[in-house]
């Protein structure tokens, strides 16, 4: 005979009783006589951190709390009640699989659905997204201070952009180009087709061909609606995360809707690169400028002169320089005259570090009549 603490499930009163572990069950000596709890109707009701508590199925609220000695008796008769509890590895694996399937479905579904949604988006929708994008941008970039050569620089920039757009068959109604002041070097396209180049990037560019490469690349993002597609895709994934986290991912969804730090996937970046090469080639320009620029960016970041902002939206410059390696057409004319390039380099309050020498003659020159001697 061993002792246990018993509640009958009918009143909140505990009594000390005698119990005996028998072959077919646990015998309880109650006031009204002996009650047998068959082993297969007994289950644990404790959390394995205190005394053993037993309950009987079906649930009636009756409980039996065993002291250590009694627990040892019961353990000998019914070891299955003392087996380790399930660690739920099966459940965890199932949940991991479920989460993985949901994630893949969402990412894949978002990627597949984003394109048709973006391409068929009503103009109103695009206009609203553009409005939100402009509002976000206004926190990070500011209008350029005016300078004496603004008009000249802008004209050169528009001219170059139009030549690229025309060669690629993009209607001028779909794009425009802006230079802005910012603390970072970057170029990006907004949902409404605005190409934005920061002053720091212009400062960083070495040749007009590099500028043409950057513009053509962004033109690719515009022509192929990459921005809208990426935004819609990110939103879909953000909403999914939001639901999985039980509403606590709201910040993530909103953060995903960020035009400036928008990362296109690698596929879109290479597509824009290929578009750029084609457009530049058709415009009679040297597509080598883009590769040259990426090579330089890769070298600079390799040397610790990192350009994290630029890399964060346009990743992996050395690989992309490699992919573009065969595209160069050396010998083609520069994308801009030295004069225009100098004007562009002087935009947005920048100081052109190497202005071309002033032209010695004013009059019209034809190459056949002898160009002025080069210094």
């Amino acid at each position: 005979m061993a002792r246990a603490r018993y509640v009958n499930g009918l009143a909140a009163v505990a009594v000390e009783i005698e119990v005996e572990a028998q072959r077919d069950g646990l015998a309880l000596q109650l006031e009204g006589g002996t009650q047998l709890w068959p082993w297969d109707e007994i289950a644990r009701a404790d959390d394995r951190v205190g005394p053993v508590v037993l309950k009987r199925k079906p649930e009636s609220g009756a409980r039996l709390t065993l002291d250590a000695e009694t627990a040892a008796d019961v353990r000998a008769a019914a070891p299955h009640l003392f087996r380790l509890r399930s660690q739920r590895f099966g459940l965890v694996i199932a949940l991991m699989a479920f989460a993985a399937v949901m994630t893949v479905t969402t990412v894949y579904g978002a990627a597949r659905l984003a394109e048709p949604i973006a391409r068929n988006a009503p103009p109103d929708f695009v206009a609203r997204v553009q409005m939100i994008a402009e509002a976000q941008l206004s926190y990070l970039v500011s209008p350029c201070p005016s300078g004496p050569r603004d008009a000249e620089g802008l004209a050169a920039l528009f001219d170059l952009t139009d030549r690229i757009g025309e060669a690629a068959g993009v209607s001028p109604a779909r794009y425009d180009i802006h230079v802005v002041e910012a603390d970072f070097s970057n170029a990006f396209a907004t949902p409404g087709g605005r190409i934005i180049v920061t002053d720091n990037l212009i400062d960083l560019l070495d040749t007009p061909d590099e500028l043409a490469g950057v513009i053509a690349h962004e033109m690719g993002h515009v022509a192929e609606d990459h921005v809208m597609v990426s935004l819609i895709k990110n939103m879909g994934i953000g909403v999914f995360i939001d639901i999985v986290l039980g509403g606590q991912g709201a910040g993530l969804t909103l953060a995903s809707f960020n035009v400036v730090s928008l990362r296109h996937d690698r596929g879109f970046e290479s597509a824009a690169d290929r578009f750029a090469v084609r457009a530049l080639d058709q415009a009679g320009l040297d597509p080598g400028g883009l590769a040259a620029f990426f090579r330089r960016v890769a070298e600079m970041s390799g040397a610790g002169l990192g350009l994290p902002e630029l890399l964060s939206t346009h990743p992996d410059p050395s690989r992309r320089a490699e992919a573009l390696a065969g595209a160069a057409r050396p010998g083609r004319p520069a994308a801009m005259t030295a004069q225009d390039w100098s004007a562009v380099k002087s935009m947005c309050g920048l100081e052109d570090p190497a202005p071309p020498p002033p032209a010695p003659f004013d009059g019209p020159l034809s190459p056949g009549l002898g160009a002025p001697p080069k210094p």
Partner: protein
Amino acid sequence: MAATDEAEHHAFSQGASFGNFMPLALKNALFTVLTLTLYRFWARSDVRRRLWATTRIMGDPLEYSGVGAELFRGFLISIPVFFAPAIFIYYVAPFLMDPGAAYLLGLGFYLLAVPLIATAFYLMRRYQLSRTRWRGIRMSLAGGAFEYAIASSGWSMLEAITLGWYHPAARMRRARLIWENTRLGDEPFQFAEGETDLVGNLYPTFALAWFGAPIGLLAASAVNFLGVRAIVTYNLYFLPPWSIFVLAGFALLFGLAVFALCASWFNAAAMNRIAGLLTLDGARFRLNAKPMGLYGVTLAGAAIFILSLGLLAPVAGMLQVRYILNRLEMIGAPRFADIGQTRAIAPSQGEGLADAFDLDFGVGVI
């Protein structure tokens, strides 16, 4: 009769420790990360079971019988009921509709969320109590979640109109509505029986808490200002640009700590008063929470929460629960022989929306 042994004090004891709680908390954290947080429902149930099992009154532990699957089912139900409309209103409508109309829709949904959160809170409480037993007797919460939501929303509105000054009264009224509907078996609790003054003298301590908000804000601004000035004065420009965010975060935490300090007298007083107004068949309760003790476990919990990136939030909850229950006692005893099982029907699925609003900080403390 309960009245005859009034002198008898029965202390609650909460025996959770790092030894019997930490392994569970760590396992839960690991599984939660591995399953992209989906394991959190099972984690929460296990934490509750452990906290209940280590809580004893008159030698007998509480028992929690809720299971993760019930909470998961509640979560699945809340997706079409709550998340789908919320996503439409906040993510889709602004792009499809006139901005003004979308804004109004969002505002309307937000206003609707106040009673919705109150409902969710009540349902969560009902679920938790229905899965709680002591000496085999099941607890329950009677009353309607909808009525609670209406009343609670009204008090919320009064709190907003009075710039928070109605809060002590609102807190006591909410406590009364909940406790008067709480039962151990078929025995209801009474709250402030025969007492017309619910608030008592909570207002002096509440004033300190109320002014703690601007004081905390001031403290945060001061820390931020001193930090920025140090950067400028000592030319600390080698610091990475994001260090100003770290500084701002630190200043914010400092401000919150100052506010929590100012609020701890009120919190302790309000909890002590709620316990003091509670009776069960003539047995009274007494809580002796101390402002500094409460503040200590709050700070320790916050530190654990931040350092573990929220993954060990239940440990923070455990510290709080343990502190309070170990200072709680029952004076006198109800006629236990007369307390039988409740006939209230237990809800079949878990908390649903409460998960969305994170009403119990992942701890499962009622």
